[in-house]
């Protein structure tokens, strides 16, 4: 999945300075202490610039943005045209 690789690469280079072994696809960015609230904003900017999407306020949720897998899933559903808002 090309998106997953791009996301992983962004996280590893931007937040982990190359120490990729700390990150699996399901690692929670917040629980693992990899990013804070500013880091979330950086991920949002990366997604908007890299993938040409708009992340809506109510899509700023852990289930969309808190792991490589979550972000990849979010992008996939976004590409299908669905909104990823909380129920």
């Amino acid at each position, binding site marked *: 999945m090309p998106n997953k690789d791009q996301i992983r690469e962004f996280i590893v280079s931007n937040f982990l300075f190359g120490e990729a072994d700390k990150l699996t696809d399901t690692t929670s960015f917040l629980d693992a*202490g990899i990013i*804070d*609230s*500013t880091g*979330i*904003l*950086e991920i*949002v*900017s990366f997604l*908007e610039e890299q993938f040409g999407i708009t992340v809506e*306020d*109510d*899509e*700023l*949720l*852990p289930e969309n*943005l808190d792991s490589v897998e979550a972000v990849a899933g979010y992008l996939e559903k976004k590409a299908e045209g669905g909104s990823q808002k*909380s129920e």
Partner: protein
Amino acid sequence: MLHPWLAIDVEKEIDLICGVLRQTLMRFKRRGYVLGVSGGIDSSVTMALCCRAVGKERVFALQMPERHSARETETFGDLLISKFGVPFAAEPITEMLEAAGFYERYDATVRKQIPVYTNGWTSKIISSNVFDKKGFTIFSVVAQAASGEVIKKRLPAKEYLEIVAATNFKQRLRKMMEYYYADRMNYAVAGTPNRLEYDQGFFVKTGDGSADVKPIAHLYKSQVYELARHLEIPEEICSRPPTTDTYSMSQGQDEFYFSLPYGQMDLCLYGKNNGRSAESIAGETDLTVEQINLIFNDIDTKRSTTRYLHAPPVLVRQVNEIGE
């Protein structure tokens, strides 16, 4: 009336603080205290404590308003200074902020989000309320035209950081001025954070976070008000709602940083610090257990980002010769 959880023996507490204030001067070989006075409750109480500890003639108050300061900052500062009779100086920082490019940088960044933002508009930054969301904290810029029109836009990472960085000039320039006076008078600098601010990181590193002593950093905000009444701080200051006094548009501290009014926030923080259950805190506030749990998470998140603010510079190896 203080909630029983926060009850303190005020006179004893004041004696303890005054003792530490005197010992600090002896330890650092300084002759008095400089502090910035904003007309808010924390700096007022800190100033009164310094006066009580070492005498008003050894306290020096600085008023450092700038273009965006609320009018009360100056009038309440004047009121406090004249009541206590402390030596003081007015050092407005508007020109220094202009020289640093603050207003230009700030306005340009807001204008990127709100292109109609121009002279005559006011603005502020707000964060999403912890109860409004199931997700992450969002920061938005809110701007208001002279006509009353209000526009709100979410801030992307780069713009959020630029606004915070530029705004931090204010706290850092004020601290630079405090240390200028402290150095020339051989005084120490008294910092003014209360416990909520100190614990939750509501301060700027090397700005208002810098000081030689922080005499009320262990006190919950409600306790600071209790000391204020005992120290005879003017009623106008005691009844002023806490404000950041950082942005041109008026902004309560609970809009930007704390999710709750200070009375409730104190009880949540006290409860968490002292092992009280969410259920028991809910019983003491008008909050639900679910809300208390959201607040607990928010406290933990802020504590983790506050570690950087408190951290001294990292050394590769300890330099053991530099001790107390």
